[in-house]
């Protein structure tokens, strides 16, 4: 019997599969389709202090083996999330929840993390300092070690829950940012967020999406994600949630061998809403084929 459970900073997960923030809403749509309690955890829609419509539409573009979104942190705001979404979720979901938090100032990050700290079912805070969609927003924090450390230290001061900093891949040195977050007290690192990408509609001669550029995700970016998880595993001593184009059980194994303790599944949920159940079903069988008895044994194995 293969043991596919894992752990993030003391939080036990039945399996490493976590739908990524922004691809799973607050769970309701997917809970109509399957019992979401089969998941290891899930990271809910990136939440900000105020409600946000997000960027103008169109805000989706297709790519070869991927997509670009410029949703721009559309969310109902932290009041509605705490008062409406989390109670509804509590009724149907009995596994640990990861709260994904975004902000446009250090104070806003602090405010939201302090509020989330009081929510019992939230076991991990995932702090997004990398969303490339908002002009005045997240991008800046994730692109320098100092700003990343400042956000980390600020949110750590207001919560006793584990804090995972979610990093942008659009940087020269991902390890510099990760090391700065660790030094500032981060309990873990989530990576990668989307690559900044763009498509042009050649019939119109204009960018496909209204905001011109957006976050590029999907299987196309997987090799970049594996590389960065591998590099960060070498650079820090805190756990990593790996993500970026993961679509199959094989991808999950590859990401864990690179150094991830758990794995988020993003864009794949959108094109096949049953991606996560399929991976969870396949994972024990794949482990048997690969002679893996305990999944956590393979974390970082490729560093050999």
């Amino acid at each position, binding site marked *: 019997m293969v043991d596919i459970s894992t752990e993030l900073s003391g939080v036990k997960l039945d399996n490493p599969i976590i739908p990524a923030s922004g691809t799973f*809403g607050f769970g309701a749509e997917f809970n*109509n389709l399957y019992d979401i309690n089969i998941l290891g955890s899930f990271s809910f829609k990136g939440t900000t202090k105020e409600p946000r419509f*997000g960027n103008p*539409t169109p805000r989706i573009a297709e790519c070869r083996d991927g997509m670009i979104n410029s*949703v721009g942190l*559309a969310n109902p705001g932290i009041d509605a999330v705490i008062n409406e979404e989390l109670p509804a979720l509590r009724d149907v979901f009995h596994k640990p929840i990861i709260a994904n938090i975004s902000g446009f100032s250090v104070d806003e990050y602090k405010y939201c993390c302090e509020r989330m700290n009081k929510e019992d079912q939230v076991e991990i805070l995932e702090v997004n300092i990398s969303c490339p969609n908002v002009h005045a927003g997240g991008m800046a924090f994730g692109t320098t070690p100092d700003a990343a450390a400042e956000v980390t230290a600020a949110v750590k001061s207001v919560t006793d829950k584990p804090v995972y900093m979610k990093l942008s891949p659009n940087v020269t040195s991902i390890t510099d940012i990760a090391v700065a977050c660790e030094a500032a007290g981060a309990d873990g690192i989530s990576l990668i967020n989307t690559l900044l990408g763009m498509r042009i509609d050649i019939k119109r001669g204009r960018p496909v999406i209204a905001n011109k550029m957006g976050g590029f995700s999907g299987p196309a970016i997987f090799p970049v994600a594996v590389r960065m998880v591998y590099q960060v595993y070498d650079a820090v001593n805190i756990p990593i949630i790996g993500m970026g184009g993961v679509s199959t059980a094989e991808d999950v194994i590859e990401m864990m061998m690179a150094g991830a303790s758990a794995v988020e599944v993003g864009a794949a949920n959108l*094109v096949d*809403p049953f991606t996560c159940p399929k991976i969870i079903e396949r994972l024990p069988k794949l482990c048997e084929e690969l002679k893996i008895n305990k999944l956590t044994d393979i974390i970082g194995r490729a560093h050999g």
Partner: protein
Amino acid sequence: MEEYIRKQIDQELTIISNEKIANDVYRMSLNGDTSLITAPGQFINIKVPGFYLRRPISISDYDDEGVTIIYKVVGNGTDALCRMRPGDTLMCLMGLGNGFDVNACGDHTLLVGGGVGTPPIYGLAKALLALGKRVTVVLGFGSQGDVFYEDEFKDLSKILSGKDLDVRVATVDGSYGTKGFVTDCLKGLDDVTDYCACGPIPMLKALYGYYDGKILGQLSFEERMGCGFGACVGCSLNTKSGFKKVCKDGPIFWSQDVIF
């Protein structure tokens, strides 16, 4: 895996026919499980082999055996779709969106289709006629070569109620029917109680302006979608009652909710 699954919306459908019916416009009939379709105006989200995102296409007609869709070739994905052949299969997310509320329709509903917004209007007309309701159909196209389904609408009338259905067609260049827009075809329709429309935003806006709040309409919107089932929030619409997802809260919105 069955024990976790609550609603298997991803169904394999088999292509029965796939034929050109107007300039760049194709009609495809597919066989498969249609039990998740609940109302005209809903759509299916099709995985075209070789493309990452699915293609949301509105349902033109359906019965227990399958669905008919009508789509326009606008890019590589729909181009690949039009090259598929009978016997090929497609994975489709079934029964997406809210659909038109047929029970909310009044005594004489104006049904308006613009271009490839026409197909869901066909299914809606069929449903309303089956309920014994009176409808008038107005279709708008660019030019004569773009026109489709005028005869199919007329045939509906014969089959379902035995008397002629009033079907009016406008073309922008006047090469067929009335020259102009759908709003140029509304003469003598003073007893219309409400309207249902699917087509480009300028058409919806013109209708909204024409009726100026005097009667209510159900308007079907289009937007570039990520998932089609409410997960990604890619296709948002800001309405008078808040931010809505076109794919899940829509694609049909009440006219008094829409901000033009």
